[in-house]
């Protein structure tokens, strides 16, 4: 586990994400695209109809969130991660098209993890329930597609030092599985314990 955060700037190349390991603390800078349930369903329809996507996934990071309304003077309302598994049926479509990262919370399916390893994409966890703090890292926000979906519209966010942890790396690491094994009663303080 990295003691100091790793600073990454989007768009990300394969070389940027290859050194990342499960449990690494990362600060993301640059652009994140927001999309959740309804936006993913529409992107799938767009792909099937041969229409362009709201953004080119190549090198980009998608953030699974649906923000609350912003108070005047704020770029974005509170915006924490939503449960990523609901996007599992759609994620491989974007990963195959060059997506390099996803930010959410909760476990991913075997199919998604396999697709990430095959095409080169990592899954980051953000701490759900820290929506007010995460929104502070968002400096600018624009709706780029599906405005009629309201909170579920696709937004382009410009972020600074957005705090995430690597959950699934390119090598089969899984923070949820490993973290739990390390701290299951009986294992604390053994070789599984943190240094």
């Amino acid at each position, binding site marked *: 586990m990295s003691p100091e955060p790793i600073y990454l700037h989007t768009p990300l190349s394969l070389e940027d994400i290859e050194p990342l390991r499960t449990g690494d603390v990362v600060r993301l800078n640059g652009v994140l695209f927001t999309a959740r349930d309804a936006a993913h369903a529409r992107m799938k329809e767009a792909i099937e109809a041969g229409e362009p996507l709201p953004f080119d996934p190549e090198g980009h990071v998608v953030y699974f969130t649906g923000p*609350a309304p912003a108070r005047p003077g704020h770029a974005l309302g509170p915006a924490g991660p939503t449960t990523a598994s609901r996007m599992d049926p759609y994620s491989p479509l974007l990963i195959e098209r060059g997506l390099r990262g996803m930010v959410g919370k909760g476990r991913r399916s075997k199919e998604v993890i396999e697709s990430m390893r095959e095409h080169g994409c990592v899954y980051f966890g953000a701490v759900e329930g820290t929506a007010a*703090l995460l929104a502070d890292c968002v400096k600018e926000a624009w709706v780029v597609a599906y405005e009629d979906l309201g909170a579920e519209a696709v937004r382009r966010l410009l972020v600074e030092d957005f705090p995430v942890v690597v959950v699934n790396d390119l090598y089969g690491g899984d923070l949820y599985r490993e973290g739990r094994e390390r701290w299951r009663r009986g294992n604390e303080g053994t070789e599984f314990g943190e240094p």
Partner: protein
Amino acid sequence: MREIAASSVTEVVRDLCIEANTRLPHDHLSALRRALHEERSELGREVIERLLENAEVASERCIAFCQDTGYAVFFVEMGSGVRITGSEIRSAIDEGVRRGYEEGYLRKSIVRSPIDRTNTGDNTPAIVYYEPVPGEGLKLTMLAKGAGCDNMSALRMLTPAEGLPAMKRFVVETIERAGPNASPPLTVGVGIGGPFEKAAQLAKKALTRPSGEPNPDPELADLERELLDEINATGIGPAGYGGTQTALAVHVESFPTHIAAFPVAVNLDCHSHRTASIEL
């Protein structure tokens, strides 16, 4: 007969929606601070520190501490000597939700049917459970219930022969299945007894009890302690990153049931535990 104007109900419902979504209850904050002290994983402690910091920022700025401002669930204890004037209590509550979610900059998350997923645009209808009580009081308890953790909740109709051991296993299995998805550290509401829907409703109501306040029945209080200990042995930890603090509290509510039945419902609430209460 005591008369209460529907407009007063609307006013307090508006305030409850904003309060529940912007200020964590004191008892829940204390539980989080205790968990921070007891958590043994460094990453786990970092997660809890961020949660506490987030709660402070949200309360200072009066913004939602979680973007999922939830279903607006209300438990209404209405005295038999109370009459609402001006409109029906149901529409007075919906109007309060409409205003609270708009004026409080809260997200509108309700769609008009699971099939036709058009947003109702104002977070109505509220989910309202009425309980008639004696007297002239009116108590409203709001729970802003996030969907991430609600989705990981479960109900099972156990048999009397399977009994208590199966009930305990089911509670722990539900939390293991939820893992990181329900956003631990959790508050766990457990309802046992009644027919099918009663167990689910008890589990939800159990979440509104002040965090960690034991059931007055000593047997159920022991069961709560035992379940909390077993849940925290799983290692899931804060945010599911691994740790010793998977749940902050387990609240069990029980109700009479049928000679053939042992229903058990487990309703999970994430670390953004949003509840507020007022007596008119």
